[in-house]
């Protein structure tokens, strides 16, 4: 459904952040894009959604194809109309608007205004908490409620594909669990294809079908979730399941070797 071929992204015409990145997101799937801080995950999503231009970033090479159409270079609002919606990192709710107004803002590009009312109910079914809070000013919601609102706002656009940027960021583990279950339900019930960016590999791989791991602007590893979970490097660096704990002296060397192998 979505295909990135060898894309390069530069900020301010000098800083090369993505260095030939390729990935595929098949229709109806949840694909996880994992990597540590600064790897270029957010940049990848913004390259897809067209939000890079607002930050003086530019896709300088490669192609971005959505449903057979090149979308690289399109304006962000047009890309939303094509069916791709990015739920930005850090929630970014409209603080001075109410919860319901935030949701309506998410439906801005919809032509079928009559159906939008019903979609509000749909969002409230996924997130009953938001229904109670619907006249509350969004800026005063808790972090978890704001994350629900951010995802709900995405649902309101009825996108074919959602790009989620670190929905677990700064939330308590129990809440993260709840939100990821809902993401999985949205994928299953609405058929929304999801590209999920996370630092929290454990939780991301618990709902994803396929995963990519990126470092320094490149994909260093990819595979089905089972394959990734079995991979020793992933276990050690991303899942925190090191079995080499006892052999401390070797560890630094191993680290080095592993990194070498990826690059």
């Amino acid at each position, binding site marked *: 459904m979505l295909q990135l071929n060898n894309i390069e992204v530069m900020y301010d015409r000098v800083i090369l952040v993505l260095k030939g990145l390729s990935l595929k997101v098949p229709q109806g799937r949840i694909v996880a894009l994992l990597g540590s801080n600064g790897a270029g995950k957010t940049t990848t999503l913004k390259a897809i959604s067209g939000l890079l231009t607002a930050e003086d970033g530019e896709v300088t090479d490669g192609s971005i194809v959505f449903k057979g159409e090149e979308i690289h270079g399109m304006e962000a609002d047009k890309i939303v109309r094509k069916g791709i919606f990015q739920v930005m990192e850090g929630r970014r709710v409209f603080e001075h*608007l109410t919860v319901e107004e935030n949701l309506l803002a998410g439906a801005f590009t919809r032509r079928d205004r009559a159906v939008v009312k019903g979609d509000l109910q749909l969002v409230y079914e996924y997130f009953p908490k938001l229904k109670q809070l619907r006249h509350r000013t969004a800026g005063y919601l808790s972090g978890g409620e704001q994350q629900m609102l951010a995802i709900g706002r995405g649902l309101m656009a009825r996108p074919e594909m959602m790009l989620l940027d670190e929905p677990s960021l700064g939330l308590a583990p129990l809440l993260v669990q709840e939100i990821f279950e809902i993401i999985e339900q949205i994928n299953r019930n609405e058929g929304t294809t999801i590209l999920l960016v996370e630092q929290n590999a454990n939780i991301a791989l618990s709902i994803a079908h396929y995963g990519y791991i990126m470092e320094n602007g490149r994909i260093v590893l990819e595979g089905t979730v089972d394959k990734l979970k079995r991979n020793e490097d992933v276990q050690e660096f991303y899942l925190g399941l090191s079995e080499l704990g006892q052999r401390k002296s070797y560890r630094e060397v191993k680290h080095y070797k592993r990194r070498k192998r990826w690059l």
Partner: protein
Amino acid sequence: MTFFLQLVVTGLVVGAVYAMVALGFVLIYKSSDVINFAQGELLLVGAYTCWTLVAVYHVPFLLAMAVSICVSLFLGIAIERMVLRSFINEPVISVIMATLGLSSAMRGILQVIWSTDTKTFPEIFPSAPVIIGPIAVSRVYLYSLFISLAMLVIFSLFFKYSNMGIAMRATADDQQAALSMGISVKVIFAATWAIAAVVAGIGGILLGNINGVNPSLSHIGLTVLPVAILGGLDSIPGAILGGLFIGVLESLSGGYLDPLLGGGVKEVAPFVVLVLILMIRPYGLFGQEIIERV
């Protein structure tokens, strides 16, 4: 007492027009942090267009007003397209400078077309005043008050409930997040300028009917600056209250202090109060609170 009430009523009428014009000012500030110094010239465009249609071409007043509103609308969009869009991604101060330049350029053009003589509207409203209790209010004042208040109500509802209104407030809150919803910032800015030009145009027409039209009408563009700042530059209800307040203040100081001090107080009073209020409340009386969660 009658004199006082008379002054208050006059002040409220003019203040309602100020509030409406200030609304345009606040909108532009809210959506783009830009202070629009050309607001006064937008007033003149509406006033001159309507005057020309009515006085020169004998077009019925309401039709003339409708045409002037359309002219203002397209002018607002054109300004955004041709002048301001080239400043996208430039610092806000450059855009503010651009509106200053625009203001001078427009003033020059307007003077070439309409000269600097005062143009008076033919009598449109019946001249017999309406007697309300102890005071007599001329009809042009009542109609002006009614039209300004109606516009304020319409725009308040528009911002509160329409999709475009919600999108405009969303953009004012977080431009990039708005973009991620598919809200085109260009469209929002164009709508903002269109509305600002329309409310200024209507304000120009109303004040033109009261006092005649000449370039000094554009000073209202400056007077709404204290109005907007008083209310908090980013607050629409603040602009409304600020407008009424400044209108009454001007009227009272003009009525009581000008005769004693030999004139000029009326023009200065809003700025004096502005300075006083800013010393106490730097964000204006109704400036938007910054939400901080812990």
